[in-house]
C-alpha cells in the first residue's frame, strides 16, 4: 500500500469517525494499519514491517489471529447458520451454555448471554442489585469494566466518567488489594463487590490470594454478591481457563467476553452460581436482561470451537509457561535498567512493565512500534505497558517469538530506546544547566 492510499484512509477515518483518535494514535506511532493478520502478528502494509501483536485488542486473540481452525469452523457455520432469533433457542446456544457450565469452577453453572464485555457487566450488576434488593456497588480505584451505563458507573477512573455524569448512584471505589478499605466501605445496603482478578487497564495488578479469599469471606458474611470481571482474564489468558481458579475463590457472578469470540465473532456470557438468591431472581424475572446480539447462533458455534481449541491444545498451560519466560526476560531488563523500569508484574500471558514516569509509556509504544512490536500502554495507567500476546503460540513458533521478545529484539529495542531517552535527558539537563 502506498503512503497516499493510507493517507486517504486516515482522512476518511478522521472525517467520519474521529480525528482526535488519529492524533492520539499517531503520537504513539500506533497509526499503522493491520493486514495479513496471522498467529501472533500482522503486517503494516505501508512499511511491510511485521508487527508482533502484544495488545491483541485487549485480550481478544487468545487463540491467535486468523486461527485456521476457528476460520474453518466459521466457514462451516456459514453454510447453514445466521445469528438466529434472539427470543428462540437453538442447539448451538444450549451447547455453549452446557459447555460453559461444565468448564466453570464449582457451582457456576447458570448461564446468561451478553453481546460483549460492557453488556455482560450491566447484566451482572442488574442481577446483583435485583437479587439482593440493595443498591450499593463497591468497585476498585482504576477499575475498568466497560462503557455501557452500569459498567461505566463501575469504572474507577475519572477520565471515562467525567463528561457523562451523573452516573448510577451508590457506586463507591476502594483501593485494589486493600482488604481493610473494602471492609470499611461495606454497608447494609451493599449489593455487590465487583473486581477484576487481574486489573488490566489499571496497569496489570494481580489480586493477592488472601485478598480474594478475604472478599469471598466478607461477601459470605454479609450476603453480598461477589462479581468477577474476567472479560480480559478469562479463556486461558492467565494460565488457567478462568483467573479465579488460581486463587481457589469462586465468585457468585463471572462475566466474560473478548476472547470468547475467537477474534472473529462478538459474543459474551455471564455465569452465576446456582444459589437461591440469584436463581430465584432469574426465575421470577427471566427477561431481566435479554441479549439481542449476544448468544447468537453463529457466536455460540464459534465460542464452542474456541473452548474446544483452548482445551484440546492445553493453551492455559502454554500461557503459563510462555508468560513466565516473557516475564523473566522482562524482569532481567528491569534489573539492568532500574532507573527506567520500576516493576514487572503479571500472571500467565498478562504481563505489564511499569516505567518510572507516565510519559514513558507512550514513548515506549512508539519505540517498540518502530521496531515491529505492537504494544499499547494502559488507558488507565500510561506508565504501564501491557504484553498480552496470543496464548496460542503454535509450539513450533514459540522459540522464534520468544527470541524476538527476549534478548535480540526487545533488548535491542529497549536499549536503543533507553539510549534515546538518556540522550533526551542529557540534552534536557544540558539545556537546564545552560539556562541556569
Amino acid at each position, binding site marked *: 500500500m502506498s503512503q497516499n492510499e493510507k493517507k486517504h484512509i486516515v482522512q*476518511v477515518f478522521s472525517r*467520519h*469517525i*474521529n480525528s*482526535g*483518535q*488519529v492524533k*492520539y494514535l499517531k503520537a504513539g506511532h*500506533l*497509526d499503522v*494499519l493491520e493486514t495479513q493478520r496471522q498467529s501472533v502478528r500482522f503486517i503494516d502494509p505501508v512499511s511491510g514491517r511485521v508487527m508482533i*501483536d502484544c*495488545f491483541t*485488542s*485487549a485480550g481478544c486473540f487468545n487463540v491467535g489471529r486468523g486461527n485456521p481452525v476457528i476460520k474453518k469452523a466459521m*466457514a462451516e457455520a*456459514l453454510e447453514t*447458520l445466521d*445469528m*438466529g*432469533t*434472539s*427470543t*428462540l433457542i*437453538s*442447539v448451538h446456544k444450549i451447547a455453549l*451454555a452446557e459447555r460453559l457450565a461444565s468448564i466453570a469452577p464449582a457451582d457456576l*453453572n*447458570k448461564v*446468561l448471554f451478553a453481546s*460483549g464485555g*460492557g*453488556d455482560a457487566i*450491566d447484566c451482572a450488576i*442488574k442481577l446483583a*442489585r435485583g437479587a439482593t434488593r440493595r443498591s450499593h456497588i463497591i468497585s476498585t480505584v482504576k477499575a475498568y469494566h466497560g*462503557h*455501557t*451505563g*452500569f459498567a*461505566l458507573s463501575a469504572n474507577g477512573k475519572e477520565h471515562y466518567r467525567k*463528561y457523562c455524569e*451523573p452516573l448510577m448512584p451508590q457506586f463507591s471505589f476502594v483501593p485494589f488489594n486493600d482488604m481493610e478499605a473494602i471492609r470499611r466501605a461495606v454497608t447494609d445496603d451493599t449489593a455487590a463487590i465487583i473486581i477484576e482478578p487481574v486489573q488490566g487497564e489499571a496497569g496489570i495488578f494481580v489480586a493477592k490470594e488472601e485478598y480474594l479469599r478475604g472478599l469471598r469471606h466478607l461477601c459470605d458474611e454479609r450476603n453480598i454478591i461477589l462479581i468477577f470481571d474476567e472479560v480480559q482474564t478469562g479463556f486461558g489468558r492467565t494460565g488457567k481457563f478462568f483467573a479465579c481458579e488460581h486463587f481457589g475463590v469462586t465468585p457468585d457472578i463471572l462475566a466474560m*467476553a473478548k476472547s470468547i469470540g475467537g477474534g*472473529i*465473532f*462478538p459474543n459474551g456470557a455471564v455465569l452465576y452460581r446456582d444459589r437461591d438468591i440469584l436463581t430465584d431472581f*432469574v*426465575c421470577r*424475572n*427471566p427477561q431481566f*436482561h*435479554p*441479549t*439481542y446480539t449476544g448468544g447468537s*447462533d*453463529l457466536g455460540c458455534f464459534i465460542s464452542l470451537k474456541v473452548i474446544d481449541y483452548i482445551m484440546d491444545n492445553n493453551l492455559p498451560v502454554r500461557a503459563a509457561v510462555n508468560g513466565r519466560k516473557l516475564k523473566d526476560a522482562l524482569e532481567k531488563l528491569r534489573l539492568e535498567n532500574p532507573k527506567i523500569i520500576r516493576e514487572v508484574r503479571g500472571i500467565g500471558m498478562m504481563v505489564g512493565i511499569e516505567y518510572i514516569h507516565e510519559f514513558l509509556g507512550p514513548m515506549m509504544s512508539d519505540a517498540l512500534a518502530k521496531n515491529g512490536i*505492537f504494544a*499499547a500502554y494502559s*488507558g488507565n495507567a500510561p506508565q504501564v505497558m501491557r504484553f498480552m500476546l496470543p496464548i496460542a503460540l503454535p509450539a513450533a513458533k514459540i522459540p522464534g517469538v520468544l527470541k524476538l521478545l527476549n534478548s535480540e529484539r526487545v533488548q535491542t529495542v529497549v536499549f536503543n530506546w533507553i539510549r534515546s531517552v538518556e540522550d533526551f535527558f542529557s540534552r534536557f539537563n544540558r539545556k537546564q544547566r545552560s539556562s541556569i
Partner: protein
Amino acid sequence: MNKTTAEILNKYETYFSASHHVVLKNRGHAIVEDHREGDCIYDLDGKRYIDCISSLSIHNLGRRPAAIVEELCKAIQETDQGNFPMISEEKATLAEKISRFVPANLECTVFSVIRGESIDFACKLARGATGRKELLSVDGSWFGQTGFAMSLSDRKDREIYGPLIPNIGQLPFGDIEAARKMITKNTAAVFIEPVQAENNCRQAGREYLQSLRKFCAKKGALLILDETQSGMGRTGKKFAFEESGIMPDVLVIGEALGAGMFPIAATVFTQRLNKFMNAHPMIHLSTFGGSDLGCRVAQKALEEYERLKPWDNAARSGKKLREGLETLRNSHPNMIQSLDGRGLLLSMDMGTADTALAFCRAAAEKGLLVCPGDVARCSVVFRPSLLISEETVVGILQAVSDALAVMSYGFSK
C-alpha cells in the same frame, strides 16, 4: 415434539431457568430453531414457520441473505476483528458509506454491537457535547437493556435495579404543550422512537416530531431518534423520520445494519457534535463495535439495501398486510382492539397480555412466529423480512385468520 427438542428444552431449564422455558411455552415458541432461509425458519421437526420476529428487526433482508453470507465467508479468509482502537480501512469505508446512506448532515459514526450500547453512547455524547445533564424520553419508550438505555425506557420493573441514571425525565407522548414546557435550557437531549415498536407500534405524528425538533433547536437540546426498529427500510422509507421532514442531531441505527449475519449497530451524528468527541477521543470504547469483519458485512449490507431498496417492498407488502389485518379486525372486533404501525412494522392490540400470548400460541401452531410487545404486553408485533413475497403475506394473513378462528372456538388455551 421429538426427543431432541425435549432434551434441548430440558437443558434450557437446567442452564437458564424453568421460567425461561415458560416464557417460550406461553408464546408457543418452545421449539428449537434450526434451518432458516429467506422469510422462514424450520424447527428440529422440520415444521416451517413464517418468521415475523426477525430477531426483533435484525433480519431485515430476510434470513441468510446470499450476498451477505458470501461476503462474510470471504472476509473471514482475509481479515479478523482487528485491534479496536486502531485505524482501519474497513471502519473508515463503512463510516463513509453510512454517511452517504443517511441524510447529509449526519456525517460521523460511532460503532457498537447492540442498540443499548448505541443509546448509551448517544446519552454520553449528548451530555458531553451540551454540557447539560437532563435526558428526556417519552412514555412508552423501549431503548434496550444497558444502563442508560434502561434508565430511559418505560419499564415496569425498573425500580428493582436500584437507583438508575439521574436527571432523566419522561415527556407525555404526543403532548406538544407539555414538551414546550419541559424541554428547557437544562435539557441535553430528547430521545424518541418514531414508531414505538414495543408499545403497540404507536407512531409519533409529523406535527409532534416537528414540534420536538423546534423546541430542541430553540433550547439548544439535541433531538435523538432511535430507529433500531423503524429504520433500515422497515416502515416503508429508509428511515421513519423522513416522513416528518425533520432532521435529528443523532440517529441510532440498530442491528439491522449487520443484516442478521454479524452484530453491528451505529450511532450517527453531526460534525458539530463530533467536535466534542474529537477533543476527547477514547472516552468511549467498544471492543466488538466496529470489528473489521462486522464493517465488511455492514458495507455489503448497505450495498444490498441500496440495490434492493427493501423499503419499497416494505411499503407495498406492508400495505397489503395492513389491509388484510384490517379485514380480519372487522370480522373479529372483540379480539383485535386496534391496529397500528406502518410499513412492515405492524401491531395488533389484543386487549390483554393473556390474549396476546394466546394469539402467539395459536399463530405458532399455524406456522407463524410473532412476539408480544415489551411495553404493551397486550400487543402482538409483526416484523417480517422486508423482502417478503406476496405469497408469504398471504401466508401470514391465512395463519392470523386461522389462529383467530381457533381462538374464537376456544380450542387453543
